[in-house]
């Protein structure tokens, strides 16, 4: 996917082309930055994020502690960096769970229709009818708190979205003439599904993956904020917000995790836009070479 930089773009649709190019760089840069921080951040973090030092509690930002210190004198920057890894790992695993469960169920529902579709769709509607946080609280009440269970819960919460996208896309593709054409050359049902349906619903699912990553980050932060996700003393953005909420008079505690969340969710949203544009505009999947 190369970025078109021909001069023709400047003539008629110059500004919008320029805008599209710019936001693409922001997305690539942002995602690369997040991945880098998640992968290598803890190695280069200035302090041990677990190290308590009660002589330097509630330090405002300084050259020693760029983002200040918290109630136990721990370095906020180091905790934020380790929190990034937790957030992204949770998001990726949860989205994978959502995709692996919701995707195939949606494809089966859309492809077979009939009672299977009716049954699955009602179950999914039921899941969506319950507020996400309530569903999460219920499941965690059963499974018990902790990051692993929180990840599973987030995955379950995302399942309906993948189900819906996969089902709708499969319904669309099933109406396509090339499906009938495949049947008319003797294609079996399984082959039809795997070779002709699945490759053609990949783009909307990919868009949903990047959208869901942002969603998963929010839910993880919410659960950790409530103390149901990451448990102290392990650092997480939600947990840091919770600690900051105890001392709203100290502004610098709440800004770093808050901005980190806003930044991450924004990047994933832009990513989904970029994915949609590049796959949708040019019949993308076909010209991958």
């Amino acid at each position, binding site marked *: 996917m190369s970025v078109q930089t021909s001069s023709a773009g400047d003539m008629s649709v110059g500004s919008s082309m320029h805008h599209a190019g710019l936001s693409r760089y922001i997305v690539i840069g942002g995602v690369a930055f997040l991945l880098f921080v998640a992968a290598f951040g803890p190695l280069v973090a200035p302090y041990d994020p677990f190290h308590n030092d009660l002589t330097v509690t509630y330090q405002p930002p300084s050259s020693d502690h760029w983002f200040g210190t918290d109630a136990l004198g721990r370095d906020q920057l180091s905790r934020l960096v380790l929190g990034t890894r937790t957030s992204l790992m949770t998001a990726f695993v949860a989205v994978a769970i959502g995709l692996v469960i919701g995707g195939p169920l949606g494809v089966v529902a859309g492809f077979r229709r009939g009672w299977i579709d009716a049954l699955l769709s009602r179950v999914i509607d039921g899941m969506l009818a319950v507020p996400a946080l309530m569903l999460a609280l219920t499941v965690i009440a059963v499974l018990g708190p902790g990051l692993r269970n929180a990840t599973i819960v987030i995955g379950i919460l995302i399942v309906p979205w993948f189900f819906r996208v996969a089902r709708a896309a499969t319904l669309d593709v099933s109406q*396509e*003439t*090339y499906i*009938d*054409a*495949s*049947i*008319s*050359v*003797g*294609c*079996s049902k399984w082959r039809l599904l795997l*070779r*002709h349906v699945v*490759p*053609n619903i990949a783009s909307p699912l990919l868009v949903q993956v990047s959208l869901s990553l942002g969603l998963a980050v929010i839910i993880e932060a919410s659960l950790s904020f409530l103390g149901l996700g990451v448990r102290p003393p392990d650092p997480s953005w939600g947990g840091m917000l919770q600690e900051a909420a105890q001392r709203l008079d100290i502004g610098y505690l709440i800004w770093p995790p808050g901005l980190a969340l806003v930044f991450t969710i924004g990047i994933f949203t832009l990513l989904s836009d970029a994915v949609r544009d590049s796959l949708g505009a040019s*019949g993308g*999947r*076909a*010209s991958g070479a």
Partner: protein
Amino acid sequence: MPELIETTVVRTPIAGAAMLSARDVSVAFPAARGGWIEVVRSATFDLHPGEILGLVGESGSGKTVTSLALMGMFRAGSRLTGGSIAFDGRDVTALDEKGWRELRGNRIAMVMQQPARALNPAFTVGRQIAEVAGRHLGLGRKQAWEHAVATLDRVHIPDARQRAKEFPHQFSGGMAQRVLVAMALACEPSVIIADEPTTALDVTVQAHILQLLRELVDDTGVSILYITHDLAVVAQLCERAAVMYAGEVVEVSDVVDLFERPRHPYTQGLLDSIPVGVEKGGRLRGVPGQIPSPGSMPAGCRFHPRCAHVLDGPCTTTPLELVTHDRGADRCVRSADLTLTGVSRGTA
């Protein structure tokens, strides 16, 4: 397209067993409020070896449903409610899905309308053809690819080896239709069902595709069932034609007879609708009224509310059956005593 008509030789159908034959084929769809709605009733016709049979009718007359039934394909929960289908002398009416899969693409192939949408956008055209060839002919990967290239070459796609590696969106409508013909041809089928293959194409491209089909019939002896609503195409391409109206075959005949001496009033109505010899500002005669919708078919002859020759009683009480006569078959009680005016085949 007068040039094409002049170069097309009219062939008499080869006598002998039919390649594909439909006998009283009826197809019904599930109704929204329960029960079944019969969309095709008692369709009967034969497709002989090496001929092109036109299946003509308006949109919604059941042409496509009939042709899909001939391949054992039933859309949207529809099913065969009567009649029998024979392929190459063998009754295939009760064939199971596995049996049909062996025939489809292999012995009976289909060319769909809307070529741009009948190809899977996710794979190269060569791969899609190779897949069909590989499966039915038992070819290896490399052989199947070579076969695909050769088949593309055979439908006159220039630079076939290179173009086989391209994706469907890189093909124009006419070239994509050639690809579909190639895919249908890949396993040397005995029958090709072409469902309005040129409807989405402009007229010059249409002429090329028709020429290609004619050439294939002459070279390979394949039989083609050509579905269309365009009588001009029937006139230049087909030896015989079956006319469908409201889910019924109303007339089967040699094309020359069909045009010059139609026996069913509906056929005559279709011929009258051809805009030839009408003065500027004059009106086409056409057929008054509208095609009835499935589920609310008139009693008796389905065409009687629109027919100028209707007789109270014979035409309006009991459903009519297709009656065979010396030159073909028709579904009209008055066909023997009516003399309907046709048109010269060339004018279409």
